[in-house]
Each structure stands twice: as structure tokens, then as C-alpha cells.
């Protein structure tokens, strides 16, 4: 099966031999000096290779890669993410749908603080992240998709302190327009929440309007206005 000793030694080092074959190699190591020398050389070389390339383990991920990795972790830790199976498990809250409200005026009347606005967040923050926005409000960006009119739509939760909601906004021109908003508890990581009629409303809206699949982080990045990059 093995054409030469190099293949046999390689297969041993790569854990590709069965018990009988391993025993044969080990027996030969004690008897055949040339075989043992070749074995030691390959083994040391492998060890050095692994050490050389595992140096990268000690280097922190680049900021861009780290953000991407964190976004992969977020849906698993946050059951209310659209990409997680816990998505349909929000606490039951009385529904109050506010259709087609324009977001822009909301920002105009906010206090002037240096933190990011909801508008900026919708334009620039990748899905899967929870961030603090103006006036100590919190925003969890759940996912993005394109609607049938090819508008960029984002599903998110916003915690305004005394009230939180689950919303979808779509971008027309430079303006984000709220398409649907329902009262909902803001998602906290690792919290399991039962499905509500409100969640079904959001889901139903998505099912009726989504065109294609949920956008990837790369596709979201491509939609970020160039002035915000």
C-alpha cells in the first residue's frame, strides 16, 4: 500500500495507520537506524511547522475580522436574532403597529450628543450587534434583506428606556422609513422568550416583502454609504 518509507512515516505521523500498521512502524524504529533517522527528521519538522504557523494564534484578530467573528457569535448568544431558532420567542406584549412612519424627524428632535444616531447605526452597523445610540437608547440590529422594490431593509429592536419595540425600516433614497413597528421586549443575550402575536406580525411582513435571502455581512457592507466608510 505504501510505495516507500516516506509515505509510511507520513501516514504514521498523520495518524492514518491502523493499530497493526502503527505497531509495525514502532517495531522498525527500534531496529532500522536509517528509518528512525528519517522518522525523527519528519517528526521534528512537523513540530517546527506547527509551532511556526501557530504563532498566529497569539495575535489578536484584525478589527475587521474580529467584528465579523463577533457577528457570527451574536446570533447564537442572542436567541431573538432573526438568524437563530429563538427568533420567534419574544415575550407576549400588546401589539401596536405603526405603519409607514418616517424616521428622520425622530432624529431631528433628539438631544445633541456625540454618540451615534439610529440613522447612522442603520447605515453603518452590521447585523448581529447591540449598540448604545443617542439618549442612552439601545439598538439591536437583527438582520438585513432586500424587499421586492430592491430597497435595503433592516430588522431591529430599539430600547427607548420606558418602551421598546421591534421594527423594520427600509431605505428609500437617503431616508430610512419605518415599515412596521410592534411593542416587544428588547432581546437580552441568553434569554429565552416565548413567541408573541407581535413577532408573527413582523415575520409575516418579512415573508410578504423579502426578495431573496437574508443579506450576508459582505452584502450589508456593500450597501453602506461611501461617506460613512
Amino acid at each position, binding site marked *: 500500500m*505504501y*510505495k*516507500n518509507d*516516506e*509515505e509510511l*512515516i*507520513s*501516514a504514521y505521523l*498523520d*495518524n*492514518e495507520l491502523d493499530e497493526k500498521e502503527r505497531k509495525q512502524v514502532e517495531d522498525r524504529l527500534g531496529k532500522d537506524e536509517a528509518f528512525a533517522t528519517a522518522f525523527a*527528521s*519528519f517528526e521534528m*519538522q*512537523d513540530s*517546527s*511547522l*506547527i*509551532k*511556526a*504557523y*501557530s*504563532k*498566529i*494564534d497569539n*495575535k489578536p*484578530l*484584525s478589527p*475587521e*475580522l474580529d467584528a*465579523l*467573528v463577533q457577528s*457570527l*457569535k451574536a*446570533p*447564537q448568544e442572542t436567541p431573538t436574532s*432573526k*438568524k*437563530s*431558532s429563538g*427568533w420567534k420567542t419574544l415575550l407576549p406584549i400588546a401589539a401596536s403597529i405603526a405603519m409607514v412612519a418616517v424616521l428622520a424627524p425622530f432624529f431631528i428632535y433628539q438631544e445633541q450628543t456625540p454618540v451615534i444616531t439610529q440613522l447612522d447605526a442603520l447605515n453603518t452597523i452590521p447585523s448581529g450587534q447591540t449598540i448604545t445610540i443617542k439618549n442612552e437608547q439601545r439598538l439591536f440590529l437583527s438582520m438585513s434583506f432586500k424587499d421586492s422594490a430592491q430597497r435595503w431593509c433592516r430588522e431591529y429592536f430599539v430600547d427607548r428606556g420606558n418602551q421598546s419595540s421591534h421594527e423594520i425600516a427600509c431605505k428609500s433614497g437617503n431616508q430610512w422609513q419605518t415599515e412596521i413597528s410592534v411593542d416587544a421586549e428588547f432581546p437580552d443575550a441568553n434569554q429565552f422568550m416565548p413567541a408573541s402575536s407581535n413577532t408573527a406580525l413582523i415575520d409575516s411582513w*418579512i*415573508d*410578504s416583502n*423579502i426578495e431573496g*435571502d*437574508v443579506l*450576508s*455581512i*459582505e*452584502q450589508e457592507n456593500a450597501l453602506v454609504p461611501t461617506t460613512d466608510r
Partner: protein
Amino acid sequence: MENVTKLKNAKAKKGAKQIHSVILDNLQPLRRFAYSLTNDMHDADDLLQKVIEKLLKKPVPADIAPLPWMFKVCKNAWIDEIRSRNVRLVASETELETLADNKDVVEQYLMHRDLQKAVQALPDNYRTVISMVVIGGMSYSETAEALEIPIGTVMSRIARARKQLAETFHNT
């Protein structure tokens, strides 16, 4: 029609969750593999980022094992990168400047650097199997699947790669 859309969306969500787990579970070997291909830590992270974005955009086909698929995507992404840059990258010297004034550390660094140069000097077919099997920790069958070659070819390439690497390294 609505049920079909819901089913499609449900499958997409399930698939997305699975690929997230597979990526996170294999991040370290994939990053090492990227490093072995690029021979530069910054390039490795850039490459890995592209690979993850590709995997999120086009998830693993249902009938294919995830690990070989991810390594294959990584290898192909690097080939695309090399073509776009039109250069063969060489080992970075900048890391040496960051090392402490420690003779043992520097010697080990230089040895690793020479070894990495020897890896880079291998023919692509040999370098890829060394990267996948020794550095990435993949089995012969996984490597065969990723490269779409018979297991016997993996076996002979890895042995020849080790032999050539030893000869090149010891002559460095």
C-alpha cells in the same frame, strides 16, 4: 406560495446558523491554514475575512463535508488574491523588529522563518497538502475531498512534500 417562501426562509435561517457554528468551531485551523498560504499574519486575517464572507454568502452544499469545503474556499480565495496581485509573496521581515533582544527567541524565529520560506518554495500542490494536513490538521480523506484528488495522491504528495521540505530546509 407563501408556504414555499416560509420554508425557503426557514431553511436559509437553519443553514446560516449551522455555517456560523462550523466557522466558529474551525476558526483556529482555518486561520493557521490561511497563514500558511499567505505567510503573513495581516494577509492571513484579510484572507480569512474574505473566506468567512464567501461562506456566509454561499453556504456549504448539503452533500459536502463542511471542513474540506471551507479549506477549499480558502485555498481558492488565496489563488484569486495571488492572481489579482500578480505577485508571489515572500516572508515578512517586519516581525523580527518586534522581537525582544533574546537570542533564543531570535534563533527560533529565524528557524521558523527559514522553514516558512522552505514551505513557500514548495510546488503549490505539495505546499497545499502540507498546509492542509500538517498545519490545518485535516485527514487524508478530508484533504482528498477538498482538493478533489484520490487519497493515494494525497498520501504520495504529503510524503514527497515532507521529503522535499526537509532537503530544502536543511540546505537553507
